[in-house]
């Protein structure tokens, strides 16, 4: 599988038009339905290769796009999500500088 190819599991004859938000491999139990004891084995079963990680990010991006950005009548939610997300991101990357502004020594 080279860069720009469809996932190996995607078969146009069976799956129809390609949905970039969809995982075409064998589905596992959704994370939200796991018991706490199963989380470890669930994480161990994940494919942690760079290509798989990029694929997961891409699917998450397209799922968000299809759910919030691409519908016909979009509300303000995706923009506020972007705002909150970027605020959190910049807070995290600047945390090393911001933590010097702490007012209390003991918490």
């Amino acid at each position, binding site marked *: 599988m080279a860069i720009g190819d469809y996932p190996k599991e995607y078969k146009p004859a069976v799956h129809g038009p390609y949905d970039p938000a969809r995982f075409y491999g064998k589905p596992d139990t959704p994370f939200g339905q796991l018991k706490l004891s199963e989380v470890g084995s669930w994480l161990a079963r994940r494919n942690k290769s760079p290509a798989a990680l990029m694929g997961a990010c891409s699917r998450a991006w397209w799922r968000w796009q299809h759910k919030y950005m691409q519908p016909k009548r979009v*509300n303000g939610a995706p923009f506020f999500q972007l705002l909150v997300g970027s605020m959190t991101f910049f807070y995290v990357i600047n945390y090393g500088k*911001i933590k010097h502004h702490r007012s209390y020594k003991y918490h």
Partner: protein
Amino acid sequence: MLSRIALRSVLARQSASTALVARTSATDVSGARDEVNFPRPVRGEPGKVRLGFIPEEWFQFFHSKTGVTGPYTFGVGLITYLFSKEIYVMEHEYYTGLSIFLIVYYGTKKMGPQVAAWLDKEVDSVEKSWNEGRLQTVKALEDAIANEKDSQWRAQGQELLIEAKKENVLLQLEAAYRERLMNAYQEVKRRLDYQLEKAALERRISQKNMVDWIVANVTKAITPDQEKQTLDRCIADLGALAARK
């Protein structure tokens, strides 16, 4: 280079049927389109959110475990923890953030509905402009079908008309035939009448001639003696008649 030429010749020698078989067996095992598990994606409504940006599903995830207020309790607890441990530090940018939040909140509440209405109108107009050509084509094709049906109906009318015209021609032929029949009858009758008249005339003329001839001959044959005798006889008869009276 040489290997590529060899590959090309192998590909050229491969027959079309084996190539097709190889391709279909390579792509898929069952081969049928799975519409149940992999339906065609449809463009849905935007996802539901609470507090302006938090997905509804996250609250649903909490509901079965903590009840309806659980997610809010968790959120408030998390923020309190972050503040309390100064993981989230309230430096000067925090107050900037608060004022920005107020501005955004006020702007959304004040201008959101108008902007939404305007954007919806724009979306509708764009969609309408995209659909217009398609709808016009559909309408033109429907009109063409209606016209075609109409002309078929007219053609059926033409058939009726031709039928009527044929009948008319047959009637004319019948009329001409009867007229000629009548003509022949009258001609024959006229000739027969002529023959009859001619025969009657000939007979009359010959009768007249015969009578004339006989009368002439008879008159010629009467001698003065006979005339005298006859006159005497007549006078005698008249006398006898007078005497009887």
